[in-house]
């Protein structure tokens, strides 16, 4: 039972990478590729259904949804990526410290903090932040970072605890390497690959969560061409004009799907700790 999802599946990795590459080109190349100005309004073409002229239709101000989605992807994806990197860095640091000094007071305190944060469902935490500090993308991302690092910290810690049983760790200890050197040379390289695989999955989940909160009106606010605000806007007109929502939603599905497929493909190939909970 070594390979849970058999290695017959490089397909998922390839499909994921291809989909992501196409999306990345389309989104990063939005200024060149988008057929219209994302904020240009056109009263004559309001709420138009998808057509040859507007592939994904227009919204209630006559703005082209495809152009808005492509431009909006930059904000959404870059900010999600940024939040993830911050969470990743904190998680790695905390996890390594807790694992390295396993059983110490530091470990206990860190694990206690993690336990407390685990008791806050992410959606609840994000809602509290939005409620107290105001809605908006920045607050949403702050909420993401303050809760999301926990999963990386737990994974890193368990990888480190594993690695400490290995001969190479004992050898480094015996040879008198400093704790810092051991963390950097011995533990970090071991932690990085499972943590990155987890990050690929988490990025998908993160984009979905941010989308959900934006849909509820707690994320980026309407005038900005950003996926979340387009969703909030599309929600109000869903039953008259479902295409306003479907456009950005389709891009979200494609993006998350790509990350999930890549995550699965990577896990099949790289994961040396099959039993770690990813």
């Amino acid at each position, binding site marked *: 039972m070594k390979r849970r999802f058999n290695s017959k599946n490089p397909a998922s990795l390839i499909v994921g990478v291809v989909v992501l590459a196409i999306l990345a080109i389309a989104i990063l190349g939005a200024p060149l590729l988008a057929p219209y100005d994302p904020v240009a309004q056109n009263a004559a073409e309001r709420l138009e259904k998808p057509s040859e002229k507007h592939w994904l239709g227009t919204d209630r101000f006559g703005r082209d949804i495809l152009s808005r989605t492509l431009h909006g992807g930059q904000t959404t994806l870059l900010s999600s990526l940024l939040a993830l990197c911050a969470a990743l860095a904190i998680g790695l640091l905390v996890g390594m410290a807790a694992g390295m000094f396993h059983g110490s007071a530091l470990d206990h305190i860190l694990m206690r903090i993690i336990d*407390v944060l*685990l*008791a806050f*469902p992410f959606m609840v935490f994000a809602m509290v932040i939005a409620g107290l500090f105001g*809605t908006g993308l920045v607050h949403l991302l702050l909420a993401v970072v303050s809760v999301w690092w926990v999963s990386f910290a737990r994974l890193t810690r368990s990888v480190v605890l594993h690695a400490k049983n290995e001969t190479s760790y004992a050898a480094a200890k015996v040879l008198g390497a400093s704790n810092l050197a051991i963390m950097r040379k011995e533990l970090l390289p071991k932690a990085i690959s499972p943590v990155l695989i987890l990050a690929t999955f988490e990025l*998908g989940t993160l984009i*979905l969560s941010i989308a959900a909160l934006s849909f509820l009106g*707690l994320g980026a606010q309407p005038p900005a061409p950003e996926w979340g605000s387009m969703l909030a806007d599309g*929600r109000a007109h869903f039953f008259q004009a479902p295409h306003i929502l479907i456009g950005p939603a389709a891009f979200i599905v494609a993006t998350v799907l790509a990350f999930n497929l890549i995550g699965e493909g990577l896990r099949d190939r790289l994961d040396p700790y099959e039993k770690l909970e990813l």
Partner: protein
Amino acid sequence: MHTVLLRKLLEALLTLFFATLIIFALIRLAPGDPVRLMLGHPGEIAAQGTSAYDEKVAELRAELGLDRNIAVQYVSWLGRLAQGDLGTSIFTGKQVGSEIAARLPATVTLSLSALLVQIALGLFFGMVASLRSGKLADQLIRVACVALASTPAFVVGLVALALFAVKYGVYEISSDFSAARLWLPALTLGVLGAPQLVRIMRANLLTEFGKIYVSSAQSRGLDRKRVVRHAARNALIPLVTMVALSFAGLIGGAVVIESIFSWPGIGKYALDSILVKDYPVIQGYALVAVLMVVLIHFLVDVVYSALDPRIHHKGEAGREETV
């Protein structure tokens, strides 16, 4: 046995204590003066800047105890929480505690029903996928799971609403809490949570199938159905945690579904309050959500230590097992 449970209980209480500290700190850090917010209705705003208004602010501040030392404030706040007093809504003036209590059954009913749907789907498709491992059925289930896990909850919810309420007219949109309105949101929420369970069930079953007792039972010529039944029972044990934790997730995740289906639960109540910045309600919602999660985690620990004797002597058993 008792010492383990006692320690778990202490840990749970400690977690709750820190959680109240975080929530209290967040409220203190939030911009805006709660007193001025409470006096925020138009008649008072017109009076702003006058000495009468300032006097009123100072009066209310003293009445609420907001002029005292912050530690004293925290302790007295904690004392009121312990008595179940979550304060009053700035917007409606009603007791937050009783308002939440009135909506809790709707959220719990929805989450539990969704959980049942999720478990049924998870067990069935997980079983099929593991028995047909590598074959077409397995591949199809896998593709469906990845696709579903990549779709935002609100898309599924809106599509369900568009189909069953608008197109076929078999679901009535209203904001009542009734059994007739439960099935669609519960089904939606359950379907959304199913992929995770399917995958874990499949993986657990395959692990069990690979164990020696299964091959020895097979070599003794035991009926295939009976072998599967044995393996399934063993594969179910690790699922207890999964299910309990996903119930905790459901409480938070139900917000989107409650909002789409106008389900009168605590998530929708909190959401409506966020838009009008009703601090006490937001705070009460966070506290209740955390309390439920901590309670569920504690119950899982209790169930586990009853199920698995190996856990008793280890410190952080439930968690360490994943290492």
